């Protein structure tokens, strides 16, 4: 079996996001970037499956600017065998990424495509689903447990009501939840070895995919500041305030 894992470079989850003064986006200059956290879970799961003898090759792919390659390099350091970097500058929407991934799937012919359930920058939660539709493959989203059974996958999904276990046919798309596993650390010798693993660079336009945005972004602004709370003297005052001021009861 061959697993293709898509990883995305995003602003590190510890960084406090700042909106640009002109409202055109968020500040990314001098900001620490990292791999999208659930993508780390996707890589970890693929590597574990390979280590368990059920997969032969793990290929990490990213779509994005020059520096996005760092995320592929990190995937290689924790066990992916080789990498692909599809270079695109500028804004990338989930549809464009799915179309690029579709082309790569046509070429690479993986049995499984893993990725994070969503990216923490735009929170779209769409790429996996769109790719599934484009390829007409089954999908299992929000996976917190994956079992490979012959040519089928048994996947436990994190849903609003609790856990749902489904069985799907391979080839398939799986989007991974943070509960799926605990990603390993990249060890220093493995980081060294990763520097020698191959990364194929592809220019998006060579794939014949139109990556131009379909959405027009009007404005980015900070959420309104929360007002300080107040203390009330008794229940009667609380009820009165909820009724007349907050107007929630």
């Amino acid at each position, binding site marked *: 079996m061959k697993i293709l894992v898509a990883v995305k470079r995003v602003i*590190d989850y*510890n*960084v*406090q996001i*700042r909106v640009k*003064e002109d409202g055109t986006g968020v500040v990314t*200059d*001098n*900001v*620490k970037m*990292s791999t999208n956290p659930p993508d780390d879970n996707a890589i970890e799961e693929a590597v574990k499956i390979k280590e368990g003898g059920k997969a032969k090759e793990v290929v990490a792919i990213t779509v994005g600017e020059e520096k996005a390659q760092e995320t592929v390099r990190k995937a290689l350091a924790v066990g992916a065998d080789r990498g692909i970097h599809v270079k695109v500058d500028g804004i990338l929407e989930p549809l464009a990424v799915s179309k690029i991934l579709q082309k790569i799937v046509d070429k690479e012919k993986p049995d499984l495509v893993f990725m994070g359930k969503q990216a923490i920058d735009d929170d779209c939660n769409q790429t996996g689903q769109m790719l599934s539709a484009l390829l007409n493959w089954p999908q299992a989203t929000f996976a917190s447990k994956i079992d490979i059974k012959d040519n089928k996958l048994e996947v436990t999904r994190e849903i609003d009501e609790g856990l749902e276990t489904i069985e799907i046919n391979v080839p398939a798309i799986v989007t991974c939840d943070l509960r799926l596993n*605990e*990603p*390993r*650390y990249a*060890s*220093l*010798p493995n*980081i*060294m070895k990763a520097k020698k693993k191959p990364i194929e660079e592809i220019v998006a336009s060579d794939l014949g995919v139109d990556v131009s945005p379909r959405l027009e972004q009007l404005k980015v602004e900070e959420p309104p500041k929360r007002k300080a709370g107040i203390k009330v003297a008794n229940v009667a005052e609380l009820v009165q305030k909820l009724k007349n001021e907050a107007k929630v009861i």
Partner: protein
Amino acid sequence: MSRESMEYDVVIIGGGPSGLSTAIKLKQLDANLNVCLLEKASEIGAHILSGNVFETRALDELLPNWRELNSPIKTKVTKEKFLFLGKTKSLSWPTWLLPAVQQNHKNYIISLANLCRWLAEQAETLGVEIFPGFPASEILYNEDGSVKGVATQDMGIDKNGNKKDSFEPGIELLGKVTVFAEGCRGHLGKQLIENFELNKGKDPQQYGIGFKEIWEIDDKNHEEGLVMHTAGWPLDNNTYGGSFMYHAENKQIFLGYVIGLDYKNPYLSPYDEFQRFKTHPAIKKIIEGGKRISYGARALIEGGFQSLPKMFMPGALLVGCDAGTLNMPKIKGSHTAMKSGMIAAETINEHLKEKKDLSIYENKFKNSWLYKELYEARNVKPSFSWGLILGIIFTGIDQILFRGKLPFTLKHKHADHETLKPANQMPKIDYPKYDNVITFDKTSSVYLTGTNHADNQPVHLKLKDPDLPINYTLERFNEPAQRYCPAGVYEIQKENDINKFVINSQNCIHCKTCDIKEPSQNITWVTPEGSGGPRYGNM
């Protein structure tokens, strides 16, 4: 426990200006040397914090063509001001009356973090292997006692010291020479100074704590290239410190405050002095209407020449502020740190090629401009132990009339942890409430640093005696850790009338102040799991 090991010609600990300059110079001298550099932060620059007005002297020597290499050194100093602050008034001191060391017209306003990121790119281009996210946690010795290298921190240990599923053992990095460039109060440097008695015959080291905030301010208040320093309020005559305000590019100002850690009153809160300072009319009018976008703090070296330890030992060198090369009256340590690293590289190259002893560092250092600079600056900081006014008068005589050549050397008498007076002999200080516009509490400040430590790992602030804070330090000094820590790591919590000393180590911004100022030296800072700590942007 078996650990993998990797061998290099030179292993460098720390990706600041001194470590990176060592690495670059080594590869320039001999491209075939195998050089690796470890950095505890998640990326180069993420733990770097500095003013910074940059003197290019060392960089001009290291990379003479830096102007053509898209370096982040862009904003030339165009104007200077020096203010003495009273409580509401301010007095401008003519800059022509400032000693030459404090004149900045040839210098640049930069972000040292960005400079380090750029230096790291230059180093990598030359073939240096840089490993961010790997703190060196342990010094390795050969049987003859010489330094053999370092071991990196184990990853994946839980808070009780047990291995988690993700456990990844540390690696031994062995160097023919190991260079320690951890910055002020490096936790390995501290051990080396002790083991090899590097500070024998030297004065006790002196430290300060520096705060920095980046503000985006109104166009009309912004003067790109303006450098302003203040002395005086809110500190009293006996506390050493002052502020800086540098008008950088993109409508940003770098606003900061430095306080000597030899202060005496345990009720003094350096953080709150900085916050209060911003409410002075001369400062407030500049930042009013602006927005604070970054915060950070870091201890710095102030001891200079008298406190500078020996920088060589068998198998290793100590460079930059891991030793203490900052020039205090100049308020600059980046160019001196870089130069100390460059001298280290020359020393190592001769050591490896011609089998010369590492002690040749001493002579090279003594024949360099770095030594001359530190020597001439030596009497300024100790003179301020007589108070601000006498300090200024003496500094005027020493620096303007004699240019640092007075035929005596003043001593630093005490280590900073010895200077606190018992709480019952000192006045309490009432700090104003935070207004969340100009002044802010520690929690919201730490939030801006992007600090994180993976949870479920051992506390990296070790107490030699866990009962001492409550049984002694609270009683005698009102536990000053609550106040000197700029990140709110230490708290005294009352539970059923019983006092508890709480260490919120996940908030730690790696400034090292506790390791320095704790009156009984009861707190030891050790490395947390890799990548832990702040994620500073352009600090």
